[in-house]
């Protein structure tokens, strides 16, 4: 992936605490200041400062030419941004949520992801599609889809799904500088989440997982907002005498196989936690890789905790049953560790 420097590019600078929405706004703002070709388009990104306030102040700073309020026409504004990328600009497309990206998925998969191959490299499509994926609280079935697996399936796309403010900012900046089309997943539930980021500029390389907690008994692999849930679980497991290593994939495509395999080779046990249904899911693919490529390292079958196999019901009494929960994760970890 072009241009992405290593984590070390920031060891000097002092740290400060910000929310994820600010991390995203800073990443976009810095890149727009750095590169005139970068612009932001999406519903409510301008006058409204973003449905989740991730582009706060950007219309005032950059004007309507570079911070563009789009009407509700995902297919249309996505395709226009793709065309603009083919003509040398570097668009950032915000989907209010990735649920609505389904209205534009043909353009993402059949145009953006394939333009380079079909033109034998004559056309590139440097564009970032970003927004919230997965369920928030009680938004009902049509607003709780997890489509990260659809995009991760697609050759030609890069798929990033970070958790922390630090990773969000550093990876979004790398995504904007990347020459490939990038699908970047956030979460409605964590835009307000706080975390430390350096004062100065930094980038995080695409395709590198991060060990969010070291451990020796079992490897817990996850991504996106579930990193926070899994870190809580690891804490609880520690109290119960189980030392869990938590791997945050950060990038789904390309996968950091090495980081995953090294950790599992160390712990010999592994549980994958995903907010996706199980069939044809990314987590099942991870389980397949681990189960087949490092078969001999495993002391127990890989564990997989997924969203249950039904559309998301509205009632909180039911939503909690479908989503991965502390209880279900701990149960699975114990099964794998026994």
């Amino acid at each position, binding site marked *: 992936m072009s241009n992405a420097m290593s984590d070390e590019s920031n060891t000097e600078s002092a740290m400060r605490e910000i929310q994820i929405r600010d991390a995203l706004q800073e990443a976009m703002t810095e890149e727009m200041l750095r590169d005139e070709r970068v612009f932001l388009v999406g*519903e*409510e990104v301008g*006058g*409204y400062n973003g*449905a989740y306030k991730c582009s706060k102040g950007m219309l005032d700073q950059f004007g309507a030419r570079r911070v563009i*309020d789009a*009407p*509700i*026409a*995902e*297919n*249309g504004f996505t395709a226009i941004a793709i065309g603009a990328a083919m003509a040398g600009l570097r668009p950032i497309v915000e989907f209010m949520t990735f*649920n*609505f990206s*389904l*209205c534009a998925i043909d353009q993402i998969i059949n145009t953006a992801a394939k333009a380079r191959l079909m033109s034998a490299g004559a056309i590139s499509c440097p564009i970032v599609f970003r927004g919230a994926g997965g369920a*928030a*609280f*009680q*938004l*009902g*079935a*049509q*607003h709780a889809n997890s489509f990260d697996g659809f995009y991760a399936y697609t050759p030609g796309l890069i798929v990033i799904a970070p958790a922390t403010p630090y990773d969000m900012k550093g990876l979004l900046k790398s995504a904007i500088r990347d020459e490939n089309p990038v699908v970047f997943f956030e979460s409605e539930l964590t835009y307000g989440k706080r975390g430390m980021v350096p004062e100065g500029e930094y980038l995080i390389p695409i395709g590198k997982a991060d060990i969010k907690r070291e451990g020796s008994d079992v490897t817990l692999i996850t991504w996106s907002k579930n990193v926070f849930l899994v870190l809580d679980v690891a804490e609880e497991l520690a109290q119960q005498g189980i030392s869990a290593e938590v791997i945050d994939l950060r990038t789904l495509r390309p996968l950091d196989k090495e980081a995953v395999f090294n950790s599992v080779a160390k712990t010999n046990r592994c549980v994958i936690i995903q907010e996706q249904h199980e069939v044809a899911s990314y987590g099942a693919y991870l389980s397949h890789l681990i189960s087949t490529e490092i078969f001999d390292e495993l002391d127990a079958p890989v564990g997989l905790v997924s969203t*249950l*196999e*039904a*559309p998301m*019901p*509205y*009632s*909180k*009494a*039911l939503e909690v*049953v*479908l989503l991965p929960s502390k209880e279900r994760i701990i149960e699975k970890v114990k099964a794998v560790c026994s």
Partner: protein
Amino acid sequence: MEQELLSDLYKQMARIRRFEEEAARLYTEKKIGGFLHLYIGQEAVAVGALSVLQKNDYVMTAYRCHGHYLARGGSARAGMAELLGKETGCAKGRGGSMHFYDVENRFMGGWGIVGAQVPVAAGLAFAEKYKGSDGIAIVFLGDGAINIGSFHEGLALSALWKIPVIFVIENNQFAMGTPLEKTAPTDDLSIRALAYPMARETVDGHDIFAVRETIFAAAKRAREQNLPTLVEAKTYRYRGHSMADPAKYRTSQDVDAWKARDPIKVLGETMESLGMKALREQIDQDVENEIQDAVRFAEDSPFPAPETALDYTYV
């Protein structure tokens, strides 16, 4: 007769207004989760339109659906219970605020993807024509829904296949925080119909009688000639897009200008001027009782059992 009509229309609008005011209260008490989009201010559109339709006509709308559900005869109890995510809800707590259903009354929801309900509703009407019934479909959408592919494909195919359907754009001037001019560089949204052989109308959505006339004529065209109509009803939502939206993108004067012509207020005054003051007060009381009863019912109802979480996915 005339009196009965006025009282009916007034009552339906008042039910919606009070239902949603109570819903807003319950939302701030965190008893309702997710998004809550209120229809307050637009009542004359749903009530006027649905008051001239038949039992065998289908009704569909977007996520701002409480008003249409109630106007079509949906129960306040089942609606309120749905908002609270209870097993006694109109969708047994599975749907939520954006997905009300009352299939017996042919109210088919309640959909969350902007514009997607437009061709689906055309399909309901298509089925009635296929069966040889005289039923039609009416579908409501927002001003924000006129650019998305589903809207155009729904109109194009309905005109091409002569489907008996009415498309009603409830132009409440905003799509979330997006003012109309950022959605379409025109203030006549009905021109979208010019691309297809279909009828078009623009109507004052605060004038319930004008809405009735317009929809009655459109229904007649659909029923008798299989000619679709695109109707733009100019209206306004008094509240934010959803409970989460402070609506800073407009002034209170803008809102007050519309409130001055509030359809419930206006119709209430008409009733009084016709000597129906007592009747109006009686209706207000009945509505109050119905809504309070609905709230109690909803609060007292049980949540769905966890072991039913996977139900209703397959037969």
